[in-house]
């Protein structure tokens, strides 16, 4: 929840918005620490007075941790007067995960969401497309549990959302 008090405009220290973006790029997603909140598409906008973020899933327990981590990173970098505003619309989609974010997911062992038009899920271990779903839900709401029929390794698939 955003604090109810009115915002008092203050000058942003440093080189402005690019610096804010680069600070945000250091904040890791608490569930998938190899990817940043920027790469995940959680940070929607950065303004002189506020940072706008959006939750991935409505009930994602990481949402509060993410806000806390962003707050801490901004405070640490001297952006103490930047507000963090949470918005629900438009709803978050996996389309907002950056190309770099997708590459990092894959390297970490999580199959990235499949772009529209593609059907094959590639095993992040051996690259085979001989894969099958084990469970609709994996270790977090955003992931499904899959298995490779070639190397027999189980893996997480970031669900298309």
């Amino acid at each position: 929840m955003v604090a109810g008090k009115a915002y008092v405009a203050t000058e942003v220290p440093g080189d402005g918005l690019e610096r804010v973006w680069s600070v945000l790029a250091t904040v890791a997603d608490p569930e998938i620490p190899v990817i940043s909140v920027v790469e995940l598409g959680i940070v929607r906008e950065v303004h002189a007075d506020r940072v706008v973020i959006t939750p991935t899933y409505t009930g994602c327990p990481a949402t509060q941790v993410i806000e806390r981590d962003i707050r801490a990173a901004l405070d640490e970098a001297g952006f103490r007067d930047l507000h963090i505003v949470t918005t629900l619309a438009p709803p978050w989609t996996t389309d907002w995960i950056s190309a770099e974010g997708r590459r990092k997911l894959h390297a970490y062992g999580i199959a990235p969401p499949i772009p529209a038009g593609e059907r094959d899920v590639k095993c992040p271990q051996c690259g085979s497309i001989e894969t099958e779903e084990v469970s609709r839900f994996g270790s977090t709401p955003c992931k499904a549990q899959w298995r490779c029929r070639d190397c027999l390794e189980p893996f997480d698939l970031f669900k298309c959302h």
Partner: protein
Amino acid sequence: MASLPPIDLPSNASGKGAFDAPATSDERHVLFDYLLRLGDDSLILGQRLGETCGHAPSVEVDLSLSNMGLDLIGQATHFLNRAGEVEGKGRDGDSLAFRRDVLDFRNCWLVEQPNGDFAQTMARQFLFSTWQKLLLERLMASSDAFLASVAAKAVKEVAYHHELSAEWVIRLGDGTEESHRRMTDGLEWMWRFIPELFEMDEIAQRAAQCGIGADVGLFRADYDRIVSDVLAQATIQPPANQRPILGGRRGHHGEHLGHILAVMQFLPRTYPDATW
């Protein structure tokens, strides 16, 4: 679907105390009550699914049920926080969830039904998620911008709940003799609570008129078609000759809700200043 007349509140019972009955002439009251209905449905079903954590038949199913519960609690947080703002008496989502008693809850009977075995849990999920998905699709066009944005977000999650539960209804129904019997029993238990989902009482009508809510009657045919399609694939005959039970939206609940609340509310009621 139901051929017998419903069991509703006795004609001389208002369900709630007359003082607290919502004033349907006031749009704010209508919005408050409507948000409570949405929030309480999600909250109670989310709590029910939470009960299965660590008790599901397999670890994959355990994850599915807990994650669906999490989605629902997330929705409830949005709906109830907003309800508290609309009410304007300083209550937030937590105080609405943890400091109200049975008669003040507005959820439908379906979501408070016990988990039973896994088939019964999935029967309840399928009948509810199918309805909730159709409802949220319409609420995306609500005149209340906040409600519309929560609906647009939640509908993507609920589409998954619908798909998952439909698959289990088919898998169990069209499975072994034992799983078929259990799914048939599960649907038999839950079936009488479907008509309440499509009830258009005064609040629901007013909410639809002023554009906040949706007219559930508009998707009744879609609902019946989807459900009978899945049941046909599951080789299950729809239950017959049941009397629908109504009244949850007016605070009239079964014996189960009080037990859910006792567990859910114990901690915040025992330690009112506890924070987390």
